[in-house]
């Protein structure tokens, strides 16, 4: 995927700082657990030192993860989780009889301060992450080998109205004339998107390409190349897809169509294409994608919907 540059540099810097802070604190907790216990006012007994050392290991791993991927909000969120554990630990220490309450309270206040910083940083990172996803132009390349003759595979693909049988997000493709077709896709919350596409290239048993017509809400193009696989292994199908959704709600809808992992979606589409051409059907699971237990369903429509195909 290609991204426009919309980074929040401040958040990146803050994340790096928090990463180094994690490592420093972690090393102190592991190496000098007893001393640290005294500083924060809890008994330096075996149980507390063991807990502090475990927390230290956690801090170090969080820190390393943040330094390795400072733009990934989830590592900073993992620090927030750690902070909550620390606060829970200190709160329970406050109730212990042999704790120095003033010192423990001081330590808890310090942790609360750091927590606020962590939340701030994680939220800023998450926001820029979302913005990137919204403004992305997606390019996906996937390939599959189908154990059928090239003429048959090309023939199936050149009939665009077949696409909804294996492309999970498409509801229908209607042929308008020799070159033009109308595509209808499902969006989030029962919404629909429609656009018109035109065939721009069709070389029999070699290549098919199409793109959305000028002025469509959805700018998309695709190309498929076909090759005979060596050793009579069937047909190699290589797919290139581009989607450049506009901004706004529609854009978010299109981004949602392709989810977090557009490659995975196209891979699943090609897997279904292979099933249709080789096995004659898209095999339905009793528990598609673990959405429901593997037991017979009352509602067959539900199984089809979860599988993402119309049969």
């Amino acid at each position, binding site marked *: 995927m290609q991204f426009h540059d919309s980074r929040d540099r401040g958040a990146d810097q803050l994340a790096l700082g928090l990463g180094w802070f994690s490592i420093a604190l972690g090393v102190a907790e592991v190496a000098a657990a007893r001393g640290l216990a005294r500083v924060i006012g809890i008994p330096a007994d075996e149980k507390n030192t063991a807990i502090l050392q475990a927390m230290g290991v956690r801090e170090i791993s969080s820190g390393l993860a943040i330094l390795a991927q400072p733009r990934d909000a989830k590592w900073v969120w993992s620090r927030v989780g750690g902070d909550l554990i620390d606060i829970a630990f200190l709160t329970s220490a406050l109730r212990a009889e042999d704790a120095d309450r003033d010192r423990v309270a001081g330590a808890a206040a310090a942790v609360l301060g750091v927590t606020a910083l962590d939340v701030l940083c994680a939220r800023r990172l998450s926001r820029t992450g979302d913005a990137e996803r919204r403004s992305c132009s997606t390019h996906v390349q996937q390939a599959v080998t189908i154990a059928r003759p090239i003429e048959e595979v090309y023939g199936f693909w050149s009939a665009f109205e077949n696409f909804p049988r294996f492309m999970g997000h498409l509801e229908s493709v209607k042929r308008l004339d020799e070159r033009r077709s109308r595509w209808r896709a499902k969006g989030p919350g029962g919404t629909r998107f429609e656009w018109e596409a035109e065939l721009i290239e069709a070389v029999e048993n070699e290549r098919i390409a199409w793109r959305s017509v000028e002025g469509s809400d959805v700018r998309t193009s695709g190309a498929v190349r076909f090759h005979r696989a060596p050793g009579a292994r069937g047909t190699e199908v290589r797919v290139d897809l581009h989607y450049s959704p506009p901004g706004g709600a529609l854009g978010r809808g299109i981004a949602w169509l392709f989810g977090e992992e557009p490659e995975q979606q196209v891979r699943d589409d090609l897997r279904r294409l292979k099933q249709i051409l080789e*096995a004659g059907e*898209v095999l339905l*699971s009793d*528990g598609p994608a*673990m959405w429901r*237990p*593997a037991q*017979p369903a009352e509602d067959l429509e539900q199984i089809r919907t979860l599988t993402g195909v119309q049969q």
Partner: protein
Amino acid sequence: MKANCWMGKGLVQIQDVPDPRILNARDAIVRVTKTAICGSDLHLYKGFIPSMRRGDVLGHEFMGEVVELGSGVKNLAVGDRVVVPFPIACGHCSQCERELYSLCENSNPNAWMAEKLWGYSPCGIFGYSHMLGGFAGGQAEYVRVPFADVGPIKVPDNLSDEQVLFLSDILPTGYMAAEACGIQPGDIVAVWGCGPVGQFAIKSAYLLGAERVIAIDRFPYRLRIARERAGAETLNYEEVDVHEALKELTAGRAPDCCIDAVGMEGHAPGIAGAYDRVKQAMMLETDRPVALREAILACRSGGTISVAGVYGGFVDKFPMGAIVNRSLTIKSGQTHVHRYMRPLLNRIERGEIDPTFVITHRRRLHDAPEAFEVFNTKQDECLKVVLTA
């Protein structure tokens, strides 16, 4: 209908679930007459296989009567008595064309899950986790059988259910393990694990021309069955040093072929066993490969280790040095059941093998939860449970 469902780690229950219906044109619905509990069901029972969900119908060893057919199944008729292979295979992809049915490329709708763990996906399997397809299993009154024009085999009336039921899994599995050894005249085969698959591996090794078969286990009753019913010499690993004993029994040549019929939950006495148990409990290793390590070290240089036991994820302290420096070959795979059903059915008909000797317990489907526990804890000398639906 009633079905035996996985309800969480260590818990299976008979539940009321909807009757299965035809979902695809190549489906059949089979009314189950007999089904069995497999050793690999215990891996699910104990929570060692990921991607299980509360309510999953278990069971991949089953047979019964065809009661309904999809429009695409032309070779079966309602009323046919069939045994169903546990791997689901389309019969048309390049793997099926090579007769590697358990590698079918079209039978796992949840393939992406398996790809995350294993790189690529194998076939779908009945009642064996969502990453292997999320298919309802055969420990039930009825079951939906996908690609029914390729999998189920019709069985003759003169053979009883018990004689043919194990064509669904464990007989071909033991047979394929022995076949993978490429047994030559004079070969000595060692088999780790005297569960049902181990017993059939011993039998098959003899059928395929092994000179001697040495079986290894720790349960005296399983060793006794291996001796008396399968004809093996036996070693109890709690009593002898297996490596030394095999060296002695083979006059220093070592077994030419070693079969691991144990899998991911191997036991070992002493430090090695404790090491794997601790690592497995801490999720640092998913499988305990104690039998596999021992088989590798015990095998003749240039020999073959055939792995029939199920492994799910990652093993630790794997003796790669022995494999490289001693030219060992490891062969494995989920069983390509479809290619063995016909020849093994013929062997059963000719009386060359009677698979019923492994059955120790017969229960009603209704008693499956209790039967799981009996089998799991090896109470009452349990070797194989057959359930009548």
